[in-house]
C-alpha cells in the first residue's frame, strides 16, 4: 500500500521543497522505495534542489497528458538507490493538472511498487496546491515561527480538511504533522520569533520536528544536494529525527533550546 504524503504550507519560502527533498531522501535512506513529485507547475524547484535539473526530459504534465510514460519521466536520484523524482513543467499552465490525471499517476506509482509518494506542494491555495493535497494520506505542514506563516498554515489545514479525498469520503481524516523550519532558538529567546510551542498552540497539530535555521541549507540547495545529506550538520540530524518520528520511533526534540555560549567558547570562538 502506497502512502501519499503532501508537504504543504500556504505561504511561500518557508522550506517546503527543502523539506520534500530531505524527507523523501530520508525515507529512501531507510530503504523505502520513494517517489517525490513537484506540483509547482510553471516554476519548478525540486529538480534543482535534488540536483537533477539537467536530466529532466519529461515532466508531470507530459505524463498526465499522455505524451510520456511514467517510466520515461521518473528520474533516479543520484544519492539514493530507492528514490525517484518526478519534476514539474516549466512551460505549461497549471490548469494542465487534472484531478483524474493526478490520480492516475499516483495509481501507476502504486502499481510500480512505490511505498511512499511525497507531493511537494506549491505555495498558495490555488489549483496546484489543491491537487497536491487532494489524494494525501498524510500531510506535513511546514511553518516558520512567525505569525503570517502560522496563519497561512492554519488556512491550508482548513483546505486540507475540506478538499482532500479522505475528508470528502468522510472516513479517517488525513494525518497531519507540524514541522517548524528555520527555527532560531536564540531569536525565540530574544522574543523575536514565536516558539514552536506557540505555533503548535495555535495550529493544534502534533509536532513532527523542528528544523534549525542554518546556512548549510543554502549551501546544500546551491550544490543540488538535499540538506539531509550534509554530514554532521544540525539540519541533517533534525531531518533524520523527523523521519524517525514519522516511522513511529521515539526521538526527543533537539536544537530547540538556546544555550548561552560559555566562557570557553567566547574566548576561543565557536
Amino acid at each position: 500500500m502506497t502512502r501519499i504524503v503532501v508537504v504543504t504550507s500556504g505561504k511561500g519560502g518557508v522550506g517546503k521543497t527543502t523539506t520534500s527533498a530531505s524527507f523523501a531522501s530520508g525515507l529512501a535512506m531507510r530503504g523505502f522505495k520513494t517517489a517525490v513529485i513537484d506540483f509547482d507547475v510553471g516554476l519548478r524547484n525540486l529538480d534543482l534542489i535534488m540536483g537533477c535539473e539537467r536530466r529532466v526530459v519529461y515532466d508531470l504534465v507530459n505524463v498526465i497528458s499522455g505524451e510520456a510514460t511514467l517510466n520515461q519521466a521518473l528520474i533516479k536520484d543520484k544519492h539514493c538507490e530507492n528514490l525517484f523524482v518526478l519534476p514539474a513543467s516549466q512551460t505549461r499552465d497549471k490548469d494542465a493538472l487534472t484531478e483524474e490525471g493526478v490520480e492516475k499517476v499516483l495509481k501507476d506509482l502504486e502499481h510500480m511498487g512505490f511505498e511512499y509518494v511525497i507531493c511537494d506542494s506549491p505555495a498558495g491555495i490555488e489549483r496546484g496546491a489543491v491537487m497536491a493535497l487532494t489524494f494525501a494520506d498524510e500531510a506535513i505542514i511546514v511553518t516558520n515561527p512567525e505569525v503570517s506563516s502560522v496563519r497561512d498554515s492554519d488556512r491550508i489545514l482548513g483546505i486540507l480538511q475540506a478538499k482532500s479525498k479522505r475528508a470528502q469520503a468522510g472516513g479517517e481524516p488525513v494525518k497531519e504533522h507540524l514541522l517548524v523550519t528555520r527555527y532560531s532558538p536564540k531569536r525565540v529567546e530574544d522574543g523575536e520569533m514565536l516558539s514552536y510551542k506557540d505555533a503548535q498552540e495555535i495550529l493544534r497539530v502534533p509536532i513532527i520536528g523542528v528544523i534549525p535555521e542554518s546556512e548549510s541549507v543554502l549551501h546544500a540547495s546551491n550544490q543540488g544536494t538535499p540538506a539531509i545529506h550534509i554530514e554532521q550538520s544540525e539540519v541533517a540530524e533534525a531531518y533524520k529525527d523527523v523521519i524517525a518520528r514519522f516511522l513511529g520511533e521515539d526521538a526527543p526534540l533537539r536544537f530547540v533550546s538556546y544555550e548561552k555560549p560559555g566562557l570557553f567558547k567566547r574566548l576561543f570562538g565557536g
Partner: protein
Amino acid sequence: MTQDTDIALIEFKGTTLPVLAITLRSLEPKELASAGNTLFGEGAFFDDDLAVLDLSQIITWPEHVEWPLIIQLLTSHGLKVLGITRVNSSLTESAAAAGLPSLALSAGRSAKPAAAPKKPVVADSALDKIPASLRKTTPPITESAATEPDEAEPDEAMLDSPGSLVIDRPLRSGQQVYARGGDLVILAAVNPGAEVIADGNIHVYAPLRGRALAGARGNAQARILTTVFAAELVSIAGIYRTFEDSVPAKLANQPVQVRLAQEPVVSLSTGQKSRLEIDILRVD
C-alpha cells in the same frame, strides 16, 4: 503500459453562456417586424447569437400571440431564441407549445442591492472549506442571516429545527460554521480568521480567537461564552464589537461572557439603547 479503460464518455460541468436578453414591448408581429427592420435592416444582423425574450415590459398583452412568426422574424435577423423570461401570463403555455420555454434568469446584481454588503471573508465560498462531515449538519448560511438579523420572525427556526451543533475539531482561518436555529458548541479552538455563527448561543470551550456572531437572526437573549477570550469580533443580534488592536487586558485569555445589555438610556429613535456587555465569566 496500462491501458486507459476508465475514460468517462459523458462528463458534467457547470458553465455560463453569453445570451442576449431582448426586451420586447409588443408582441404584434407586424409592429416588431417594422421595428426590427429600422434597427437591423433586412437580413441577418446577428451571428447566430443566443437570445431570450424578456417580456416584463409588454405594454398591452394580446389575447393570442403568433409565436412562430416572432421566432421567424428574430431568426431572420440571425438570433437563436432559447425561450422567454420574466413573464407572468397565461401565454406561457402557448409559448412553450411553440418551443419557447419559460426560463428563470438569475436576478442579476442590480436586483439585490443590499445583499452581502460587508462580508469579504464569507464571500470566498467559505462553505467549500467546511469539512464534509460538518457540512451535512450545517445548512448553508445566507448572507442576510449573518449580517441583518430578521427582526420579524426571530424564533420560527427554533421551532422547526433544533439546529444545535457540536464541533470538536479546530476551526481554521477561512472556515465558517453556522448553527441555524440553535446553539453552537465548540470543543476546540476557533482560530483567527474563522467565523462561528449561531441563531442561539455560542459556547467555545477553548480559545476563541476568530469571529463569533450569536443571535444571528435577531435573538437578543443570545450569549457568547468562552473559556479563553481572544476574539477578533463578537456580535449579538447584529450589535457587534471589533477588537482591532487586541482585547482589553483584563479580558484577554480569560473565561468571558458576552451578552446584550438593555440600558435604560432613552434614545430618540428606538427608545432603547443596546450595548454589548463583555464580562469575566464567573461560575458559582
